[in-house]
């Protein structure tokens, strides 16, 4: 703490003193409450400070805020121009809130909370809403880009016009440069040879050649020995990236080790939004219902773009047997896992806490430290330690079991053993938290209750179940609900230990017998082929409902005082 003199000076400033007087007037209008509160000089006009330093820093703050506002505005415009209106809206709201909070003097108190709230808004609430939004769309790896980008990508597609080729030769042009000579006999598709001009490129270094190379008419090949096929092979990649432009505008690309062939962009955009296919002569029509361009006979052309599909994803989760089966199985397991974890950790933690509260026991501090060790080791390390220990072939656990009982369980391939292993590991990880909670709560129980019990002849078990447990269960309940919610979403444990394995047979989405709903969602969204973000978001939305119910229940039970 700095000595008093260090902060005595800045307080002597007339503006602040005036604000102190006004604050008195403000509180007179309000019922006086016993807790000391301040209104952060709300609604007071700012006066020009007499201290130059303060004046400058105030202007610096204003400039910073203005810059921030402008930067956010730039983001808004960028997102809007790119057609990403969700993000544009997010940052518009953020920017507007920033501008309002930091310009209006009435919102002085809100300035203190704004940054944290903005952080939560952008990184918790917005993603939540966005996820719910995605759940009504077919956003996935096949429907990823915007319609505009899909159109551009298709229009950039080219194809080789069949039948026509130019044979070419490479000639050294000195200085490690080469010239391409395209011989003028043009093999037309109908087998006749139509004689056209020979073409030649300017001398160019292949490793730093421009993407397009203009050709001009030549009367004869360069006066040198052509480089062989070996040189062509060596430079194949560079040649493949070249586009040669003939004098009449035809574009030529490498079509083999000896030939260049004319290429053409495959699709032509029509005014009504459809694309004409030059290769097949058909038409591609954009289908706003599925988010794909479809051919005349109804075939979809990938890539597509995301479109709203209404309740399709939810319908798949609830009615499609290939999705519903695994979903229900995982749903039940998730609840069982969370509930059993809470029961096991609480039991172990509670028993240990009762033991450690026993006055007659020595060495309590040492026991306590050793017992909370699992809590102190980072979870991602201890989970991986267990992964190694449970290894079916070399793991220490199976070695011990083998030598003692002659068994070696398949911890990772048998669904029930895998679930058992998860519960064992999670109990190891989670009991110290319960131990600490119980110890804190037991300490607040009046000791004379136990004395009364001893007078009446109550043993330790009577004490445990008739005094300790009933007295701590009520304050413990909200914490147990929070622990349930945490384990309901215990993604790290599942991912690092089993990764959901062993897999459920017959599921159309990646689903494992030990997957929790969260890890299931994660796998649908980020693993394997498919990357079905829409379906994952639908399941995530269902989990949101469960979590929201739990946290509302919790809020009611704790009777939070704010």
């Amino acid at each position, binding site marked *: *703490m700095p000595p008093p003199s260090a*902060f005595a000076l800045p307080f002597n*400033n007339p503006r602040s003193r005036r604000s*102190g007087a006004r604050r008195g007037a403000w509180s007179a209008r309000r019922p006086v409450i016993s*807790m*000391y*509160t*301040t209104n*952060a*000089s709300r609604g007071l006009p700012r006066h020009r400070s007499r201290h130059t330093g303060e004046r400058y820093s105030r202007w610096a703050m204003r400039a910073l805020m203005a810059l921030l506002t402008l930067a956010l505005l730039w*983001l808004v415009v*960028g997102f809007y121009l790119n057609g990403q209106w969700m*993000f544009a809206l997010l940052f518009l709201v953020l920017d507007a809130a920033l501008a309002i909070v930091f310009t209006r003097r009435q919102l002085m*108190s809100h300035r*203190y*909370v704004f940054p*944290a709230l903005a*952080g*939560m808004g952008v*990184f918790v609430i*917005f993603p*939540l809403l*966005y*996820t719910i939004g995605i759940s009504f769309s077919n956003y996935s790896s096949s429907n990823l880009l915007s319609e505009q980008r899909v159109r551009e990508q298709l229009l950039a597609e080219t194809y080789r016009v069949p039948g026509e080729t130019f044979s070419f030769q490479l000639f050294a042009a000195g200085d490690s440069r080469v010239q391409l000579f395209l011989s003028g006999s043009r093999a037309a598709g109908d087998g006749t040879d139509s004689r056209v001009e020979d073409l030649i490129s300017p001398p160019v270094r292949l490793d730093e050649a421009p993407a397009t190379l203009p050709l001009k008419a030549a009367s004869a090949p360069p006066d040198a020995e052509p480089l062989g096929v070996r040189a062509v092979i060596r430079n194949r990649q560079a040649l493949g990236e070249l586009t040669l432009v003939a004098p009449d505008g035809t574009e030529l690309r490498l079509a083999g080790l000896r030939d260049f062939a004319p290429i053409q962009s495959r699709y032509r955009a029509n005014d009504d939004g459809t694309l004409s296919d030059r290769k097949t002569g058909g038409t591609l029509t954009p289908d706003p219902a599925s988010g794909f361009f479809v051919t005349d006979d109804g075939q979809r052309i990938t890539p597509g773009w995301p479109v709203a599909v209404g309740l399709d994803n939810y319908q798949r989760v609830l009615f499609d047997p290939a999705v519903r089966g695994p979903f229900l199985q995982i749903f039940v397991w998730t609840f069982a896992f969370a509930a059993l974890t809470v029961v096991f950790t609480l039991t172990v933690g509670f028993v240990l806490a009762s033991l450690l509260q026993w006055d*007659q026991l020595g060495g309590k501090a040492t*026991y306590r430290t050793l*017992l*909370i060790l699992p*809590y102190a*080791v*980072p979870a991602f*390390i201890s989970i*991986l*330690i267990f992964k*190694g220990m449970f*290894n079916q072939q*070399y793991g220490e656990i199976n070695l011990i079991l083998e030598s003692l009982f002659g068994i070696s369980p398949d911890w990772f391939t048998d669904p029930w053993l895998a679930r058992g292993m998860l519960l064992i590991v999670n109990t190891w990880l989670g009991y110290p938290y319960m131990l*600490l909670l119980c110890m804190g709560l037991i300490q607040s129980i009046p*000791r004379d209750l136990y*004395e009364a019990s*001893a007078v009446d002849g109550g*043993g330790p078990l009577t004490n445990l179940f008739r005094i300790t447990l009933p007295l701590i269960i009520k304050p413990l309940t*909200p*914490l147990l609900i929070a622990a349930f919610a*945490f384990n309901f*979403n215990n993604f*790290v444990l599942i991912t*690092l230990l089993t990764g959901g394995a062993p897999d459920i047979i017959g599921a159309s989405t990646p689903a494992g017998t030990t997957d929790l709903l969260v890890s299931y969602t*994660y796998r649908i*969204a*980020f693993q394997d082929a498919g990357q079905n*973000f829409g379906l994952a978001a639908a399941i995530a939305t269902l*989990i*949101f409902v469960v*979590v929201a119910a*739990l*946290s509302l229940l919790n*809020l009611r039970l704790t009777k*939070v005082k*704010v």
Partner: protein
Amino acid sequence: MPMVQPRSIRRRRLVAHLALLVFVALVVFPLLLVISISFRQGNFATGNLIPHDFSLEHWSLALGIPWERPDGSVVQPPFPVLLWLWNSIKVAVSSSLLILLLSTTSAYAFARMRFAGKAPILKGMLIFQMFPPVLSLVALYALFDRLGEYVTWLGINTHGALIVASLGGVALHIWTIKGYFESIDGSLEEAAMVDGASTWQAFRHILLPLSVPILMVVFILAFIMSIMEYPMASVLLLDENKLTLAVGAQQYLSDHNQRWGDFAAAAVLSGLPITVAFLLCQRWIVGGLTAGGVKG
């Protein structure tokens, strides 16, 4: 201490000690095992808890030094563990500082000021902090993907994204600090204000110096949470050189190639400082974890 004591207390005490010792042995066994394995030769050697074929190979590899075996072959370190640890610490320190900065000012307003929407905001924060970020990873990925097109240091595969994303977890810390602020009597600040201090000055020069202990606790808490953060980092970071320890460590035990010994050394090397820090600060951390987040 109860004045009336039941009989056979000595036997009961012995049983309690015995039970506790067995349990402690079970709990500590995996940790001791890993330390032992880190000094054994080979990646899946069996042996006693005290290794008889003592070797520093795994430790040398974990520290990034190539190891020469007796037969002359040189083993290169499989993964840049120290780099991962450095990445983790970098991300954790910056995000903890950011969280500390934002949650302290917010907690001050919530503890000392009256303003519109205070109660709903506080309750809303309690509700939203229970939603794990894993569930909205798709949205977060999309957000940073798009954001990266305009602000490169906030794109996918940057530490900036990870640091900023940790701001979603400020609610817990705001509640912790708020609880502490409320336990400090306001008369000191009031006196300062009477003497002409502005609200900000009272906060900055009176309350903050008094709150250093809780700020330390919140910093350590945020630091440990950030070090252990897995889901977000696993989605946002792609390059091996950018990974944090939590994401990188699992590569030792991939399904195809399990490097049990190398993992053990890396785990002890990186886990030990965190564990020791936790144990040293356990008194404060436990208070913050068990009470601050939930109690009003």
